[in-house]
């Protein structure tokens, strides 16, 4: 009965306490999927993102962020920003060019256009990722699925990023090219993209926030996914307090380029008193 305010309130409150397959877990320590080896009390973000859904969070420097693909069909499209100055953001070109490597895996830094490491990839059991194709647009979904309404069954990754960015005061011009995890692409000798798809269920990727980050995530099919249907699985996200990369870590000096990138990052953090 929702005929009066009191009845409506009772009806609304009776809905509390339920669960769904796709939801944030609050407090994060209550997550039913706390990663092995992580103290639940250290969790600062726990969520299962729906197929075709998105999430976003500002996380502290030193936060470790883990993406899990429980079904093998997730595709985590990700953009990261310096949360303190979002004009500093993921620069995919520098992220490939400076490490001299097009294929993302553990140890690869996600670089900004300002010569700093926004996040380090510190764990990867998938190895199937892509930094060439970005995410989908409405135009793409329209030609592939015949529909692209953001509220419908075939949302484009860009539509979700637009909304996620807006919730942090950012406009479409603040959306740079993104990277995607869990669905892989390779480049053949002629430049053609070869679809590798998923590495299977139960894979994970871990990022380490080297600065305070705004993280935007859209969970939509990769643009080159050859399946005619819109197939994407749930995406789990967990984050917990840890430490940013420092001189004691092997990756700090793994290459001269990475070394100077970490020096630039720490220089910025020190100057800002982070």
């Amino acid at each position: 009965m929702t005929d009066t305010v009191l009845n409506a309130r009772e009806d609304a409150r009776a809905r509390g306490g339920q669960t769904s397959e796709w939801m944030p877990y609050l407090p994060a320590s209550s997550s039913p999927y706390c990663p092995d080896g992580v103290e639940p009390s250290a969790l600062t973000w726990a969520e299962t993102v729906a197929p075709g859904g998105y999430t976003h969070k500002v996380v502290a420097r030193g936060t470790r962020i883990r993406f899990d693909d429980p079904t093998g069909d997730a595709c985590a499209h990700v953009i990261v920003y310096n949360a303190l100055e979002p004009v500093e953001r993921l620069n995919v070109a520098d992220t490939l060019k400076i490490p001299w490597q097009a294929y993302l895996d553990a140890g690869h830094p996600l670089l900004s256009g300002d010569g700093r490491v926004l996040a380090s990839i510190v764990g990867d059991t998938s190895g199937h990722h892509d930094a060439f194709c970005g995410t989908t647009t409405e135009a793409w979904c329209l030609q592939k699925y015949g529909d692209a309404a953001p509220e419908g069954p075939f949302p484009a990754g860009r539509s979700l990023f637009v909304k996620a960015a807006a919730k942090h005061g950012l406009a479409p011009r603040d959306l740079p090219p993104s990277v995607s995890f869990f669905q892989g692409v390779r480049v053949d000798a002629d430049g053609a993209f070869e679809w590798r798809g998923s590495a299977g269920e139960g894979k994970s990727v871990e990022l380490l926030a080297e600065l305070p980050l705004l993280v935007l995530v859209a969970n939509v099919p990769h643009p080159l996914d050859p399946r005619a249907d819109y197939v994407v699985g749930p995406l789990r996200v967990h984050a917990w307090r840890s430490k940013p990369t420092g001189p004691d870590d092997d990756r700090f000096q793994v290459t001269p380029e990475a070394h100077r990138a970490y020096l630039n990052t720490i220089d910025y953090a020190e100057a800002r008193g982070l």
Partner: protein
Amino acid sequence: MTSSVPVGATFAPDSPLDWSEPLVPGEVVLDERVAPNASWSAVVRKGHVLTIVDVGGNQSGDCLIYNAADTEERYSAPDTLAWQGNAYVRTGTVLRSNLGNPLMTVVGNEIDRQDTIGGACSKESNTLRYGHHVMFHHGCRENFLSEGQKHGLGLRDLVSNLNWFMNVPVEEDGALGIVDGMSAPGKRVAVRAEMDVLVLVSNCPQMNNPCNDFNPTPLRMLVVEP
């Protein structure tokens, strides 16, 4: 008048230069020269064809494209590559926007492949690539900021760009990098505007890798109405 400002390198006086001519016939509506290290911009009307001449050979022309009527719609390297299913830009490549719309089409190209993976050089990324002693060097990102502000564009509007005449192979294991160019004096690329577009170009000043043959030379920009 002298100046104590450290300026970038320019081409050796004996460098062969070939100013060439438009790659596509038509009435020339714009003909401008871009000095080494300098930036350039122009609106190219729908249907007009922009020819970029690599006057001295292997000179990277870093390039961004915007919908002239609404610059929030701009060049998207990932959309361009995903729609064509290939990592390289060649004749026939449709240069797409962040909305997936065609901005320009490559209608002529005198080298095997053009790059849109390598991005622009910058003072900041130069420190990672070469060391902090090159922080004072000029970079394409500087040019994009100087040229972009003439059109109300800033850092938020800079995205992964095209690099005309730059060679960035992706090898089998994913190794990727800027290597010796495949261009030569007078080689050209021609792009047809599919809508009214604003084109920004940085004549790359980089002196720490082979993207300019370590000898920055001019570019010639020609727009014809076919």
